[in-house]
């Protein structure tokens, strides 16, 4: 294969290449649907879906291998905005977004929607405050910006520290998700699934670094968005909501609000306690009353948004565009592609809920005889693996809302089955979830390995290292960190969502102000940045453990202002800002050279600050 992964003709051919790829994937989907009609089993279909898609990613990953520094770290700075937008969207949308979000909205109602708002609005901060300036800077990694703007090896090291803490917290959750999906689709034990998932992740990134990750992420975005939208369109047609359900589900929301008091959502509580399962108690669209509820909503939104703008694996995607303007445009495209999934998730949650509770629909289960409900295929299937339970607590033979227990993660998978869609959809969704988790894990592992190889090894430990040795180090680190992540994942320490929210809080506590003020405040200096990163990280960290261990000597008896462990970033970032400003003002202003550098960063035209070809 003499395929070029750079250059004018490759870039011009991109729409054609991915057009053919998309057509091929759809053809594969219809082929599987046909095989199902011919009598192929659901298990075989699941295996084929996961194996086929991972095979394609591996193929792209191997073809785009490279030994050039610029290609390995920043994909040769040649990724057009629309494609970088897709790659960022895949990088961004994790297993949690894909698998857990609709279920979270289903169970958590309005309060959970803070994630939907928070995980989109952060891109306004990325575009206005960060991405174009970091691109102009010409850095390879986020610590590269910190280290060059503020100077000093200790500063660079502090940035590496924050990056690794935030990204490692996040990556374990992603490897867990790949393990869960691989285990279910391929019918292997979870512990094996984790290592299998890791192998798939590494084959995408190891040989070609950022270049390989970019082109696999575009492929993964296409799979994940198709896998998310097809079931929604299909189900909506099947249930008579029309072909564009995202624009039509308003009346369904109102119908749920009318039904809620009738069936007792929020008033009837569960009688049993079943591990990992719960009944529906939150109202769908009605926010909890009071200033505290509103405060908790906006603080969660703030953490997710500011975290977005501080997460290195997202910021580094904007180093790969050909120009500053392209970096800015690609942020807008990223948000557009993310929007396609996030504005569909609440629609999915709404349809799913309405079809369970509306007595006028044939799919209704609430208020129906228990025996009829227990006879349903999907109820039996998910009960058998402990993700759903039906218990007639009051013994009246009718299923009440507080007698139906479920694990929220199954909503995305179970809803198509409830609507009677064929099994091929389950295979498609498994492939989509796998794509979402793999692409995020790849971005995170690469962010860490690149920071350690470029910033720690090359810039701090051995500045004379030759290119070959640097790139070899980067790959070895990728394997080591990946294995570390898989090891932690196989111990199954926290739920997926908890770990994800923590990663955002760590990133914002340590990196947000040093990054923003590096561009927007010329006076910001090395001492201030160092204080901002270290104080932010450690105060945030302390608050996280303190709020989770109220009885320990370092613990606090009650969260401050309702800021629980999902929101510790608010405490960390406040400490970071104060420390950075106070220390900066107490120490001398940066030298004229640094100030001139900041001036140059602020205009798009001209050479990058760090000369290209490292």
């Amino acid at each position, binding site marked *: 294969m003499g395929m070029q992964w750079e250059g004018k003709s490759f870039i011009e051919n991109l729409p054609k290449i991915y057009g053919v790829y998309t057509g091929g994937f759809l053809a594969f989907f219809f082929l599987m649907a046909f095989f199902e009609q011919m009598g192929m089993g659901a298990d075989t279909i699941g295996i084929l879906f996961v194996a086929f898609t991972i095979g394609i990613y591996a193929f792209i990953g191997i073809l785009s291998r490279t030994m050039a520094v610029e290609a390995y770290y920043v994909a040769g700075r040649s990724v057009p905005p629309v494609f970088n937008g897709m790659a960022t969207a895949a990088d961004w949308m994790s297993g949690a977004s894909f698998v857990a979000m609709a279920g979270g909205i289903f169970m958590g109602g*309005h309060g959970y*929607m*803070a994630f*939907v*708002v928070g995980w*989109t*609005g952060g*891109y*306004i*901060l990325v*575009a*206005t*405050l960060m991405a*174009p300036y970091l691109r102009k800077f010409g850095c390879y990694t986020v610590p590269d910006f910190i280290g060059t703007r503020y100077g000093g090896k200790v500063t660079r090291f502090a940035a590496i520290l924050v990056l690794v803490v935030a990204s490692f917290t996040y990556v374990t959750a992603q490897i867990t998700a790949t393990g869960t999906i691989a285990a279910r689709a391929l019918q292997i034990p979870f512990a094996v699934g984790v290592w299998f998932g890791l192998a798939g992740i590494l084959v995408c990134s190891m040989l070609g670094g950022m270049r390989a990750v970019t082109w696999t992420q575009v492929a993964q975005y296409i799979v994940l968005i198709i896998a998310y939208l097809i079931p929604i369109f299909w189900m909506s047609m099947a249930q008579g909501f029309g072909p564009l359900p*995202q624009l039509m589900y*308003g*009346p369904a*929301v*109102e119908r749920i*609000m009318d039904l809620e008091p009738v069936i007792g959502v929020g008033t009837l509580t569960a009688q049993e306690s079943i591990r990992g399962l719960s009944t529906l108690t939150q109202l769908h*669209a*009605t*926010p909890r*009353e009071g200033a505290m509820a*509103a405060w908790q*909503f*906006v603080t969660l*939104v*703030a953490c997710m*948004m500011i975290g977005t703008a501080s997460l290195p694996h997202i910021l580094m995607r904007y180093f790969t565009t050909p*120009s*500053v*303007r392209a970096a*800015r*445009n690609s*942020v*807008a495209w990223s*948000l*557009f592609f993310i*929007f396609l999934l*996030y*504005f569909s998730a*609440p*629609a999915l949650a709404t349809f799913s809920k309405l079809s369970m509770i509306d007595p006028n629909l044939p799919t209704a289960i609430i208020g129906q005889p228990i025996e009829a409900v227990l006879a349903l295929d999907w109820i039996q299937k998910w009960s058998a693996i402990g993700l759903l339970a039906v218990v007639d607590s009051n013994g009246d033979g009718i299923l009440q809302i507080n007698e139906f227990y479920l694990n929220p993660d199954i909503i995305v998978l179970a809803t198509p089955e409830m609507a009677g869609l064929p099994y091929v959809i389950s295979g498609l969704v498994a492939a989509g979830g796998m794509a979402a988790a793999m692409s995020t894990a790849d971005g995170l592992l690469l962010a860490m390995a690149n920071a350690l190889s470029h910033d720690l090894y090359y810039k701090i430990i051995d500045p004379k290292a030759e290119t070959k040795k640097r790139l070899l180090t980067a790959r070895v680190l990728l394997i080591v960190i990946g294995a570390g992540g898989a090891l932690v994942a196989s111990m199954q320490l926290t739920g997926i969502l908890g770990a994800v929210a923590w990663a955002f809080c760590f990133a914002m506590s340590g990196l947000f102000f040093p990054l923003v003020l590096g561009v*927007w405040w010329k006076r910001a200096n090395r001492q201030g940045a160092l204080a901002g990163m270290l104080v932010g990280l450690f105060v945030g960290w302390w608050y996280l453990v303190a709020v989770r261990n109220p009885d320990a000597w370092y613990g606090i008896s009650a969260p401050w202002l309702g800021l629980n462990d999902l929101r510790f970033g608010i405490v960390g970032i406040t400490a970071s800002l104060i420390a950075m400003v106070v220390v900066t003002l107490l120490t001398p202003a940066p030298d004229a050279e640094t100030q001139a550098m900041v*001036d*140059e960063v*602020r*205009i*798009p*035209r*001209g050479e990058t600050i760090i000369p290209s070809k490292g």
Partner: protein
Amino acid sequence: MTLDLAQREAHWRKTRNLMVVHLVIWFIFAFVVHWFAPALNNFSLFGWPLGYYMTAQGALAVFVIQLFAFNRQQHAIDREFGVAEDE
């Protein structure tokens, strides 16, 4: 770069003002409307309770449109001062 100090400052002032304008819009749709969600839910928009609509779609759509508009505006500023990149 042949850009004198006054022009540099004028470019940055415009850039900063644009940033502030967009962050104000962002602040309203990220926080303010959701703070008043219970009250907004009394209004209905094409069948949606308005407070719910803003979290599920409204704010998101504003963010997307806002970013494309921001890019045009920033590019116009860069061109005005001759600091846009060569195409």
